[in-house]
């Protein structure tokens, strides 16, 4: 009895987290993600395409401030190449960095200047500051995306649902000016971001067809990596630790039986 209640208690306390999951809006569409589960890893090809979507679409409005270019070539990252254990040497990473313009300075005469990116730079913010971002988006702030899939309940499915969830508003509903209808949005069902993805919005370098669904899935794969870049390393270490502890537990249980062999208890 006691055992049963306590195991119930444990389950209940851990599922308390799930209690918070209920947010505003429609129930998320769920996908089978490559990164889910105890063996889950990132689908590198999808994450690379996802980076392309971020770069060509989202980066116009959203920063990704915790990600430096070299991070894209780290172990477990979308552009990791075992030939270049130091991602700063990776030509793909160098080429990506060069595509971005970085504002640096001040120089000797006190002026800021522009230069092409290098691998050590962080992905630059599209706006000079938060006010500028709001001014360009009718007062709404496009949040930084580096943690977005962990900053929403069931984040990866949420992001996928949001990006593919734009619809015509229901009959009789009047949208505020500049707003779009999206029943999945966490802040109500009117969002200040117009549908960012449209059929063929990017031309994938690997020839994949750029349907809205495909682009949404790919950018989710990429942003999930951005929010949790050490996931593969963490799960791998987790398995080693669990197996080690399991063997240690067996050994200790054996010792326990041996020590207590002659004692009735």
């Amino acid at each position, binding site marked *: 009895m006691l055992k049963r209640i306590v195991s119930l208690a*444990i389950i209940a*306390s851990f599922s308390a987290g799930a*209690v*918070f999951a209920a947010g505003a809006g429609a129930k998320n569409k769920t996908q089978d993600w490559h990164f889910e589960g105890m063996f889950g890893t990132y689908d590198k090809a999808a994450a690379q395409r996802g980076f392309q979507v971020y770069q060509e679409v989202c980066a116009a409005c959203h920063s990704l401030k915790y990600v430096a270019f070299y991070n894209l070539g780290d172990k477990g990252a979308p552009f990791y190449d075992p030939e270049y254990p130091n991602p700063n040497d990776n030509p793909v990473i160098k080429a990506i960095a060069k595509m971005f313009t970085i504002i640096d300075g001040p120089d000797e005469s006190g002026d800021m200047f522009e230069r092409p990116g290098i691998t050590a730079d962080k992905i630059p913010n599209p706006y000079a500051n938060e006010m500028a971002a709001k001014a360009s988006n009718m007062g709404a702030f496009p949040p930084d995306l580096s*943690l977005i899939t962990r900053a929403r309940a069931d984040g990866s499915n949420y992001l996928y649902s949001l990006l593919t969830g734009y619809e015509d508003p229901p009959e009789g509903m009047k949208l505020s000016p500049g707003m779009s209808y999206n029943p999945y949005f966490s802040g109500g069902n009117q969002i200040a971001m117009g549908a960012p993805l449209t059929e063929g919005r990017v031309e994938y370098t690997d020839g994949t067809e750029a349907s809205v669904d495909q682009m949404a899935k790919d950018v989710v794969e990429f942003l999930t990596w951005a929010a949790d870049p050490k996931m593969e390393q963490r799960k791998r*270490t987790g398995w080693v630790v669990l197996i080690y502890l399991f063997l240690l537990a067996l050994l200790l249980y054996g010792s326990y039986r041996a020590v207590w062999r002659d004692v009735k208890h």
Partner: protein
Amino acid sequence: MSGQSNYNPKTGIEKWLDARLPIIRLGVDTMIFPSPRNLNYWWTFGAILAVMLVSQLITGIILAMHYVPHPDMAFDSVQHINRNINWGWMLQPMHAVGASMMFLAVYIHMFRGIYYGSAKNPREMIWIVGMVIYLLMMATGFMGYVLPWGQMSIWGAIVITNLFSAIPPEAAGTAVTQWLWGGFAVDGPTLNRFFSLHYLLPFLIVGMVILHIWALHIPSNNNPTGISIKTKADTLNFHPYYTVKDAFAIVVFLMIFSYFLFFKPDSMGHPDNFIPANPYSTPAHIVPEWYYLPFYAILRAVPDKLMGVVAMFASIGVLFALPWLDTSKVRSMRYRPLAKQFFFLFVLVCLGLGWAGAKLPSDLVFVTGVDADGHEVGLTFVWMSRILTIYYFAFFLVILPILGLVEKPKPRPASIEASVLGTDKGDN
């Protein structure tokens, strides 16, 4: 049990040291210590807690080397630890998930104490020191949660520190609140002092744990029968019998810990804490960490703010008096058929309060129908919390005191040895 020593210094140098600083004697007597021979796995949680405390200290000290207690940099510094510091991706969640695991263990440890009557004579001081530890743990956990400076950090801090403003301003409520904040709102000075105190309190906990174990060594452990040790045949030395049993339990516990740490690191936190703190944007639903939820439910069960705060503190305060509220002469509820049922109900009530604490007070537990406007009606969580709060207090203030006087306990074995060997079923 105290007084005799099992240490015989043999070499000259040991004798020399023992005459001046008997530290080896202290160690030996702590380990070679007669414990009841029938302790079950519920008695391994003290050792589990000790291991977790050390783990929290080590991970915390390393995190503090990289963490920056400033409103503009705290959130970024935690990301920096997770993304760029060697092993930071493991240490930071280890500390955060570890806090949850420690509370899980402490709740089991406390329920164990209530069920087996470990709080009662002659172990009142073990329990009271334990309660001081628990209070310190609550304060430490609360301030730790503020440090990453996410949305739940700041809003949790705002809600909890505002509890003190329930004290009327004439009685210095405002002054106390502003003194806690170090200003006129939860801001940089608050974060900085919380960091300082979050670093300090764990060491007070260590000191209290030493007192806790010292107090334990006077009467020795209680045991599942609740019967006192009578002869040497009732006991086994702590080492090696319980060191090996504890070690096994610790490793099993660490496996559960590792599962959450490596595979579900976010499951015990709140997604809003991945949004940087913003004092101008209130989250839709502010909730504390899971281990405070029952008390949060009690707080919100009372309509009046000040009385709610009083009820919440009373719900913890009443635990201090437990050794005297449980009036039964029989320690273990194994032999108390009625108390046992009320106890299990109490455990369920605590879980129910935790559930209610995670919900909005106006949410419905179940729906009984619809009102004239078509809105669903039924039992709200605030009403559920009220009912459960009444049971919570009644358990300590009414049920335990009265039950001890009226309940007829079942016969108990003559001794621990007899219960183990099954030789004697006499009562005493």
